[in-house]
């Protein structure tokens, strides 16, 4: 019984970290209606950044976030101007292939710069919090807390602030928003760059937990896609729920079946959701069946 609780709890914690890295993807999808296939490579770059900070300056990766998050915001803005913006007015496939090519580009640029070696940082806390017979890693608990904080802050921002209202108006009807004086292109830019900044934050949380290597993004982006679709594309609280589902499924199936099948189970879960509830758990009605560029 305590094994089961242990598995579920650590599943929830790992899942919340997965959710943090998926929020940027779902935000960008919700507003721009594009899927960024290079999302995993953004994460990879930010993880290398956090690793480098720790490695070179001996800084704690949580403190490195102060530099990594703005840097990723800038990086997102540059990518938006160079690749995404020119592709937005072209057929929908152009964005798909352009971001796909961008992902290959970044992955191999990283391979050239950093070689294929695995990079780790030394453990920060080196101990677990023990409650009864249950052990929980401090890094995971911290990740969980940051994810919750981030989700609530983002929700508040979207509900209450002027920027959030402008974003919601753009989502509801881009043309009407433009006519009301909302600078829609700038909203797109801010959303894309903001989504990238969130990836930067996720990377700082993940560096103490996972090794970094050039193709690390591919593993994580597939998980992020599953989470985003599970929660409903464009839904922030959906990403949190989706992330926790994926974390728990992975943790249970890798213990009770086999570690190798852990991944397979959540891809099967993903396909089942696509068959029976294609809009995800909290997604917009009909999003999956009308296609996304109307």
């Amino acid at each position, binding site marked *: 019984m305590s094994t089961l609780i242990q598995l579920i709890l650590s599943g929830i914690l790992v899942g919340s970290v997965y959710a943090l890295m998926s929020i940027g993807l779902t935000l960008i999808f919700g507003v721009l209606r594009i899927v960024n296939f290079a999302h995993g490579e953004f994460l990879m770059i930010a993880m290398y950044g956090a690793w480098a900070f720790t490695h070179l300056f001996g800084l704690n990766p949580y403190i490195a976030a102060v530099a990594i998050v703005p840097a990723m915001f800038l990086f997102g803005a540059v990518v938006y101007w160079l690749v995404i913006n020119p592709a937005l007015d072209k057929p929908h496939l*152009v964005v798909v292939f*352009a971001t796909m090519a961008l992902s290959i580009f970044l992955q191999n640029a990283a391979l050239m710069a950093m070689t294929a070696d695995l990079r780790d940082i030394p453990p920060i806390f080196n101990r677990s919090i023990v409650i009864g017979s249950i052990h929980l890693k401090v890094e995971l608990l911290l990740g969980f807390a940051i994810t919750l904080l981030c989700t609530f802050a983002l929700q508040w921002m979207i509900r209450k602030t002027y920027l959030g209202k402008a974003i919601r108006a753009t989502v509801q009807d881009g043309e009407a928003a433009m006519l009301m004086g909302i600078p829609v292109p700038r909203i797109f830019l801010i959303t894309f760059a903001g989504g990238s900044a969130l990836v930067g934050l996720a990377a700082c949380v993940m560096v103490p937990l996972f090794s970094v290597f050039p193709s690390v993004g591919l593993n994580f982006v597939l998980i992020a896609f599953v989470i985003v679709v599970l929660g409903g594309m464009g839904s922030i609280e959906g990403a949190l729920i989706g992330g926790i589902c994926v974390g728990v499924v992975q943790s249970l199936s890798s213990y009770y079946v086999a570690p190798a099948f852990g991944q397979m189970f959540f891809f099967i879960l993903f396909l089942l959701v696509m068959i029976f509830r294609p809009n995800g758990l909290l997604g917009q009605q009909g999003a999956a069946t009308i296609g996304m560029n109307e």
Partner: protein
Amino acid sequence: MSAETIPSLSPRRMAWFPTRGRISWFEIALLLIACALVVSGMASSLQDVLLLSFLFGGLALAWNIAGGYAGLISFGHSAFFGVGAYASTILSTRYGITPWIGIWIGALIAAMFGAVLALICARLRGPFFILSTLAFAEVVRIGALNWSSLTGGAEGLSIMPAPSLIGMVFASKAAYAALMLFYLVAVFAITKGLEASRFGYYLFAIRDNEDAAGAAGVNPLLGRTAALALSAALTGIGGSLFAQYFLYLDPTYVISPELSFQFALLPAVGGLGTAIGPVLGSFLITPLSELLRSYLGSSAVGLHLVIYSFGLIVVMLYFPAGLAGALDKLTRRGRPR
């Protein structure tokens, strides 16, 4: 999806790149050049590049049937490739069934996988479809990796490198090149036949407006399933040929997202929804990436892919109709419309 989801060539004047089943002198000239190259007896390393260009040209055409003609953008085609490769290899190494038969069995199994994928994604469009194909291929990949008693697991499978006609293992690369060229021409002919057929028109209708096609009496689910099954079967045949040439199946390569992306990118560069586009794409990209790899590979790992993907971004942003579209525009310049 909107009507202009697929950037396609205008059907007005396409002397060089005709659609709707016709064949131009340009295409016949290309075929003759290809045949001449096969028998020219060039250096072995160049023959490698040549036969890979043929093979990937055929695979790109096979992908194009689903992606370009039916609008089913799949990033999971390496699953079908792997199924075909594993099927013929397992049949020949374990059960002594010649690959000449095994290829067809592999194609049949791959077609079944394609039909299953089409049924799973029956209601999905846009990115939801794309992501489901990716997830489907991951399920197949992890399954193949862990069912070691059948697939050899992470060690992969090897084919005896003893040349024999029955075993479809040849000593000369020219023989392989001829085989790959035959595959390319066969898939090209099927594509041309499809363009002129009633089924092809159904696919165009489903791609351009699925709801309208349904209202006009086309069964979208049937069309999508048939297109994906056909595309999967042809991809599976390509997988078997790949296995017969390399004589080794590396599970981390034959079913991988990277390979799936390559199947999709070649037609995208060449021109989606045209018969000649994927061929042009493969003849530009495959030699380029092979040569870049052989010249730069040792000194800078990954540089060839950096250059290659940078080129892709430029092509996608500035020539969204691909090479065929750009050439078509060029050859029509100055002529009255």
